[in-house]
């Protein structure tokens, strides 16, 4: 091959170089994928038959009215559903091809790879430092320098370092709501996950903190695969690459539409999405 290229006339070679410099048009690989995922609480079906591919390095926003199983869907992806009594999951959910549903996987390592941020900021009632140390120690990272450098790295990544580096040993609960939420994101990032699940991470925050956290989430894109549940359509439009609309049908949630962000808002496939985006429904 190389010989062939060398023998090419100069003009042709230049042209092919120019072509090679163009960014590759490769679709991101599927990172997390669910197939016919169904979740029941006892007899009640929370959502049914959700088939949703989630691409690597993208932000997938899940929108829809309350009670259509968005948060429960997220909880399937890190098996937090194991904590809920009476909860039964069927179908398939895979993380890079590895099956998560109904298998005896190592939950500790799954949850290291798939981090989660909750609606209400929930730092532990410990110091800022201990909040970050505790998960590291749990995952056998105990080298002082390593702990210190990871701590600084994630606090910088969430833009907290300048605000808190002088008071790492003060209680995390003394931080403001927005700072607490960013600390929670840092706490998830300190384990170097691949996927971050965010369950309405901004809805308990004031508008300014919400904006800061939203910018942070947007920055995390590409380094991480993000799945964010949000009630804020404008937010989904600003940050998401793909949008999934969950809706309630026959008392259970289902996936009404899943498309690229621009298509979702400008040329939705189904009538429901159009009405939802217009504000006529939901």
């Amino acid at each position, binding site marked *: 091959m190389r010989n062939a290229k060398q023998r090419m006339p100069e003009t042709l070679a230049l042209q092919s170089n120019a072509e090679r410099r163009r960014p590759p048009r490769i679709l991101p690989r599927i990172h997390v994928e669910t197939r016919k995922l169904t979740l029941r609480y006892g007899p009640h079906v929370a959502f049914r038959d959700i088939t949703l591919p989630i691409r690597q390095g993208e932000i997938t926003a899940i929108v829809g009215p309350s009670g259509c199983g968005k948060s429960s869907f997220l909880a399937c992806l890190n098996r937090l559903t194991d904590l809920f009594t009476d909860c039964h999951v069927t179908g398939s959910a895979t993380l890079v091809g590895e099956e998560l549903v109904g298998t005896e996987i190592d*939950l500790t390592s799954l949850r*290291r790879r798939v981090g989660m941020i909750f609606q209400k900021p929930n730092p*532990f009632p*410990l110091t800022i430092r201990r909040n970050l140390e505790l998960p590291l120690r749990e995952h056998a990272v105990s080298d002082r320098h390593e702990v210190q450098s990871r701590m600084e790295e994630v606090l910088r990544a969430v833009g907290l370092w300048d605000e808190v580096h002088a008071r790492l040993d003060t209680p995390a609960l003394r931080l403001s709501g927005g700072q607490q939420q960013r600390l929670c994101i840092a706490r998830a990032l300190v*384990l170097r996950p691949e996927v971050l699940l965010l369950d309405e991470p901004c809805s308990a925050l004031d508008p300014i903190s919400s904006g800061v956290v939203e910018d942070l989430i947007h920055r995390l894109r590409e380094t991480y695969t993000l799945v964010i549940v949000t009630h804020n359509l404008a937010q989904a439009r600003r940050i998401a690459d793909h949008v999934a609309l969950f809706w309630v049908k026959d008392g259970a949630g289902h996936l009404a539409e899943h498309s690229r962000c621009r298509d979702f808002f400008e040329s939705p496939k189904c009538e429901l999405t159009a009405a939802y985006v217009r504000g006529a429904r939901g």
Partner: protein
Amino acid sequence: MRESRTDRLLELACWCSAFMVLAIAGWILFDVMGHGFRRVDLNFLLGSPIDAGRQGGIAPILVSTVLILGVCMTVAVPIGVGAAVALSEYGSEGRRATRLIRASLDVLAGIPSIVFGLFGNALFCRALGMGFSIASGGLTLACMALPLVIRSTEEGLRSVPVEYRHAAAALGMSRTSTLVHLLLPAATPGLLVGLVLGIGRALAETAALLFTSGYVSRWPTSIFDSGRTLSVHIYDLSMNVPGGDGNSHASALVLVALLIGINLTASLMANVWLRRRIRT
């Protein structure tokens, strides 16, 4: 206008009730202090009782009291904390075993102390051959303090918001380390409250100890020796020893002072513990 008068009357009535409580507490303290204060001195605290307790001090009785409390807490705290963790962390509400343990706790809490005394006498003194001893008394008191310790530890564990458990699980933390690093520290103030209640109940106990630790007032030589606690001493002096009233009041003063001291220390410890937990 009329409404505001009703409001004021109700408020007045409530304040009257509140002052009544204050008055009762004040009266008791005043009475005990008034009768006992002049007799309590270093000789009283460090001396042995003379003439069946009419004269002399209470040193051996204080030592027996401390030993009995020690035995009681050494047994009650580990069992109590273990049971509380089992009930609130590992047991599910619907399970039969959980319900059974809860029901037996209610029974334990409701049993009159005299019955505990008889039980302790039958089990520890006779069946286990410990005789009338500090060990028998302490173990009997441990049975009595258990429900209090379990209840308050459980309350403490339950008061930990579910968000922390979710956060810990989402970070891949195991149940054990969630328990050790988050739940138990958070439950410690509750545990301390339970301890204080338990110690209070144990210190105040007379009936159960008459049957189990006996009321020999000399220095105990070991925990298998018989010993008399402060409450038993007070009872004996005022009921069985004519002319023992003076020292009985003095002992009562020491007992009340001990209880108040323990309460204050516990709330101080709870504060310090909370602060340290947040620092380190």
